[in-house]
């Protein structure tokens, strides 16, 4: 594509930005041109400044977040500092990360119409535009639905339609995949791609889940690190360059697999997308690597810590949330419970913790029936950690927060101190014992919530979406921590729809769909099973597809080999 003939939509020139609340600039020396009709992906770890770039584009900087700007940023040839946020919103349409939080209207139709309402568009014209735009986003039949009736993916489509009502030049997506399950994420990327091709608009996507975005064509990838642009190249070039792993951004798994097989990637191999990868050049090396992998010895059976027998639960007679669930979890296992939103996986956790009572069936803890035990009693055996630490922490000081459960149980203060110290030490929070909670990062707060559960000495920990919204670095930090807890003997159950997490950390996965258990096997077997992945809104892992392309006879074993290799070489 010749870029010289095209007119630039975005021009950063020696751009620098510093929040008033911070000592150092967040963005340094940004020089970047994005041309009309391009589709550009901006990647970078958390805190790299990639969201700040997005906020400069849509005008939230300096309109909502104040700071000092140096250099120049032009959008369609006009300096943004001379425009206000309303003028900018006519040129740049932004879809924010949290589709639920930005759903303003009481119904789909109202939410899509929001920008039109603010422009005083007459009612009849407004209804027409809303219908047209919502049809593009496949939401035309749901105009009267309220946000509570929609799935995460549908809410995102609504936000998308909401910015499409203005004929914007640039569509900006801030982490569009953050809260979506893998299959819905794929549809979202498809929709963005379709609109990009049909409307010829410029598209900028800010995201750290690289592999999922690269499922469809992208013109360029901009890599941001510590407030600077460190790479600006095509996906094929980026995969060949050794930039991402050093910055703590996860490469697509199939790329990692090729690197494990000692393949020297070049731009000519076109590894930007699995679809375009020139398989002939890498086939032999991959097959050879696969043959060399030795089988790992199987694990021996341990005692069953938690067992469900014919568990059923329903809120009302009509809709059964859980139906005849059976599973066995062994002592010291790390298990993931996966499934779509509303499949019943959170309800299962609630039943286990005793928040709600099962209608039929039994739950056994070391063979002992849990029936009749209160939430309080169960919490000494099974701890539950919510997704958002802000929803759990209720004391201003870390020590008090962790001690809370023990104080309620009237444990003597000397014993509390030693138990809190121990929990803080396990969680790597010992130096922060006397700190206020507010001084901690998100990941550290997460640890505080885990510590406040550990202090009660549970044998099982259930965590709801422990890594949601975390970049690769923080994801690894949290997961490695959980792994170390697991190594100390705590059985860990994770509710998740993150496929990487399943593959890399949980040897055992239980899949729930529409209230029934549809899969109970190793994560590798689940993620290479087409039927189960489809029913549970997961995706077949790209490793499996790579193995298929390479004509490896047993693709499932290839995936298992990859995981084993990674554990051996990177986590010991």
């Amino acid at each position, binding site marked *: 594509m010749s870029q010289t003939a095209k007119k630039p939509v975005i021009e950063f020139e020696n751009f620098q930005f510093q929040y008033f609340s911070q000592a150092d600039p967040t963005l340094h020396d940004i020089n970047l041109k994005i041309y009309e009709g391009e589709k550009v992906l901006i990647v970078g770890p958390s805190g790299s400044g990639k969201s700040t770039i997005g906020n400069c584009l*849509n*005008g*939230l900087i300096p*309109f*909502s977040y104040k700071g000092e700007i140096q250099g120049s940023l032009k959008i369609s040839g006009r300096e943004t500092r001379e425009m206000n*946020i*309303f003028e900018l*919103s*006519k040129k740049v349409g*932004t879809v*924010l990360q*949290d589709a*639920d*939080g*930005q*759903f*303003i*209207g*009481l*119904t789909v139709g*109202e939410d899509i*119409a*929001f920008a*039109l*309402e*603010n*422009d*005083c*568009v007459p*009612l009849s014209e*407004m*209804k027409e535009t809303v219908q047209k735009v919502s049809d593009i986003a496949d939401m035309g039949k749901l105009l009267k639905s*309220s946000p*509570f*009736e929609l799935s995460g993916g549908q809410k995102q489509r609504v936000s998308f339609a*909401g*910015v499409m009502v203005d004929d914007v030049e640039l569509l900006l997506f801030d982490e569009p995949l953050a809260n979506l399950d893998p299959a819905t994420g794929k549809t979202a990327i498809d929709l963005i791609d379709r609109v990009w091709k049909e409307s010829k608009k410029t598209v900028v996507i800010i995201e750290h889940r690289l592999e999922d975005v690269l499922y469809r064509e992208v013109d360029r990838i901009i890599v941001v690190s510590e407030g600077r642009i460190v790479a600006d190249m095509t996906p094929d070039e980026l995969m060949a360059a050794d930039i991402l792993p050093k910055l703590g951004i996860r490469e697509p798994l199939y790329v990692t697999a090729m690197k494990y097989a000692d393949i020297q990637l070049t731009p000519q191999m076109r590894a930007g997308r699995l679809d375009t990868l020139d398989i002939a050049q890498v086939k032999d090396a991959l097959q050879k690597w696969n043959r060399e992998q030795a089988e790992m010895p199987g694990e021996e059976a341990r005692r069953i810590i938690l067992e469900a027998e014919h568990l059923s639960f329903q809120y009302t007679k009509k809709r059964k949330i859980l139906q005849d669930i059976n599973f066995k979890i062994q002592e010291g296992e790390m298990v993931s419970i996966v499934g779509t939103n509303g499949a019943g996986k959170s309800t299962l956790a*609630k039943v286990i*913790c*005793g*928040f709600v009572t099962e209608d039929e069936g039994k739950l056994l803890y070391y063979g002992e029936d849990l029936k009749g035990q209160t*939430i*309080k009693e*169960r*919490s000494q055996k099974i701890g*539950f950690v*919510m997704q*958002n630490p*802000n*929803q*759990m*922490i*209720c*004391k201003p000081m870390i020590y008090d927060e962790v001690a*809370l*459960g023990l104080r*309620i149980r009237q444990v003597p203060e000397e014993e509390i101190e030693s138990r809190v110290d121990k929990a803080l030490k396990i969680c790597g929070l010992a130096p922060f014992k006397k700190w206020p909670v507010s001084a901690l990062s998100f990941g550290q707060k997460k640890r505080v919530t885990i510590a*406040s*559960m550990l202090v*009660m000495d549970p044998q099982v920990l259930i965590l709801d979406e422990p890594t949601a919204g975390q970049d690769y670095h923080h994801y690894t930090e949290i997961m490695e921590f959980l792994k170390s807890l697991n190594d100390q003997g705590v059985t860990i159950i994770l509710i998740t729809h993150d496929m990487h997490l399943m593959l890399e950390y949980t040897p055992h996965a239980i899949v729930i769909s529409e209230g029934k258990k549809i899969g109970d096997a190793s994560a590798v077997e689940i993620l290479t099973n087409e039927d189960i992945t489809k029913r549970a809104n997961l995706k077949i892992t790209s490793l499996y597809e790579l193995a298929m392309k390479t004509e490896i006879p047993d693709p499932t074993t290839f995936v298992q080999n990859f995981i084993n290799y990674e554990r051996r070489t990177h986590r010991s």
Partner: protein
Amino acid sequence: MKAKLFDYIDRDNFIYNLSGLTKLVCFICMTFSVMFSYDIRYILFVMALSVVFFRMSEIKFKQIKLMTIYVAIFLLMNFILTYIFSPQYGIEIYGTNHELFRISTRYTVTLEQLLYQVTKITKYASVVPMGMIFLLTTNPSEFAASLNRVGCNYKGAYALSLTLRYFPDMIRDYQDIALAQQSRGLDMSRKEKLGTRVKNVMNICVPLIFSTLDKIELISNAMDLRGFGKHKKRTWYAAKPVRKGDWAAMAFGALILAGSLFVTFFVNGSRFYNPF
């Protein structure tokens, strides 16, 4: 999961199809007419009308059962307290004294006092069904639109609509947080002493406030990005156009108000009607 503050159910009948503006205007007119007048004949007339409208709106009693019980309790309390604190007020305002029987020097039962208190109850009893009709037959988002159209600032009106939008979210957050805190041993059940329970509720409120504050920042950004507050006016997607039926209904509301004023100034010559 359907969770709405007012249990708004879409139906197709005359009252439902009126625009929110019309219903608000009629509600204000009729409320004002019964609040202004103390003529029990006119109030009973309006009360009969509001019962008729209630029937027309096809609202099920089940929807308003709880609210009716609260209102009934409130009215009863009001009746008793009014008598306890001002047993002679009827005589004062009507200027006559027809004593029925005497409990003590201060507490006598007079026809005037009875009339005054019964009038007061019928006032409330005629306004409340009207309020329920308005709330239950108006789509919550149209409600904001109609407030704006009778002159309320649109930012204020929208704040109301946002409250309706996020209230169920907050309830759900509260429930989630409550469960998580219970698993740490906070007892919310009746087994615990009241003082401790109140303290435990406080422990839930802290995380609730913080997670709500996070949300507010996000919403206000999303609204800025889509041009909220750009102009002095805005249009409303949820607004219903004002049709013939609406004009007729508003005229009827105005007529009721005019009737009340007429009775007050030309028939009775004061706000009070004294049959004795």
